[in-house]
């Protein structure tokens, strides 16, 4: 399946336009959700994040997947290159985000619950 030749003679415009439609629809869904903000999504928490934020983040990663795989043609690269780039990025970023957000939450709790005055 991997299209490794630099000059594939057949055109893939159909795929490009279908990915464009997917990206547009997902963005539209995000914007509509962001404007109407349904109560049951904003007020329901799941793992210390509201459902609407989970939806936004998952849709964002879904879009990132299509941009990388279709537009940047990652789907046509060899397995080695794909893993070298995608896995490295994903693991490092997940680790960084986990550590830093945990610290941010802790810092916030410290400010709110200890003898620190912030509203004056």
């Amino acid at each position, binding site marked *: 399946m991997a299209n490794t030749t630099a000059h594939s003679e057949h055109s893939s415009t159909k795929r490009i336009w279908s990915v464009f439609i997917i990206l547009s629809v997902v963005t539209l869904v995000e914007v509509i959700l962001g404007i109407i903000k349904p109560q049951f999504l904003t007020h329901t928490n799941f793992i210390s994040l509201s459902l609407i934020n989970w939806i936004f983040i998952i849709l964002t990663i879904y879009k990132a997947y299509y941009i990388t795989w279709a*537009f940047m043609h990652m789907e046509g690269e060899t397995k080695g290159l794909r893993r070298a780039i995608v896995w490295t990025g994903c693991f490092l970023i997940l680790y960084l985000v986990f550590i830093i957000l945990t610290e941010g939450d802790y810092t916030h709790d410290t400010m709110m619950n200890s003898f620190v005055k912030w509203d004056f």
Partner: protein
Amino acid sequence: METTLTRTGTEGKTWGGGNEPLKVSYGKLMMWIFLLSDSLTFSGFLASYGFTRYYHSHTWPIADEVFNHFPFLHGVDAPMYYVALMTFILIFSSVTMVLAVDAGNQMNKKKVATYMFLTIVGGLVFLGSQAWEWKNFITGTYGAVETEGGNILQFVNSDGERVALADFVTATPTDRAQHTRANGIWFTDEPDLPSFAIEDVIASFNANPDLLVRTTENIGVHEKRVLSRSASVAKLEAEAVAVVEGANLKRNEYGPKLFGGYFFFITGFHGFHVSIGILLNIIVFANVLIGTYERRGSYEMVEKVGLYWHFVDLVWVFVFTFFYLV
């Protein structure tokens, strides 16, 4: 000749040398490696933005209130529409870029040139939109007051609608002139003076019984604490120290000081990437026009700048989510 070579038994195998195990050219591989490191830089910025947002989660501004402008719709509350439009522009310029790459694979010079041109136009429109967004952010809409502790106090009427300083403050005549470099005894100056003095704001607020103070404190989802009239007057008298209009690198009228800093820094760094992308696109576009890649027999350079351009789009998708949606 054959006998003088040392045989390793790995000839023709993946790591036997003389081949490209990843089946990409050096330039493309290095572009991927660069993009990986660049994505780590951006995720570092976004993660530290996340840290600050968690840290200030009790006072973080509501994005819909800050970014609610749309061209030619003055005073209309239009949250999200403008950034959504910007996102579409950038996604569409990504589409024309990938169409240019596709045309390059078929060695169709004319089509490559057309699509490259459209990509550059899309990039310029996006950059212009970002400049307009910055202009609104820097100018501000309502103005606010800063407390001794560095918090922001905003003004609302009894219906809870925001009220701009200009709508209720009557300025008393003042002799205070901005100190500039030209007339100092040393080469020092001071920032622009706000439109109103803090004393005038407090006096006008006290004279207007309809007005209330809204703090930046979040109570519940997308809701800020509004003080009672007596508490508002007392808080202003006791704590207000300065008038804040719009945003700069030190303070902003929207909320925590770091909010402005992160907005400028992250969208600015992204905008810088877009500018570089446009520059690279223009260079490649010129090379397409004069037939460089036609003579070279390969349009791979279009593919390489294409990777960079898609990456810029990719980053924007995340910036869009974390600044405007979440």
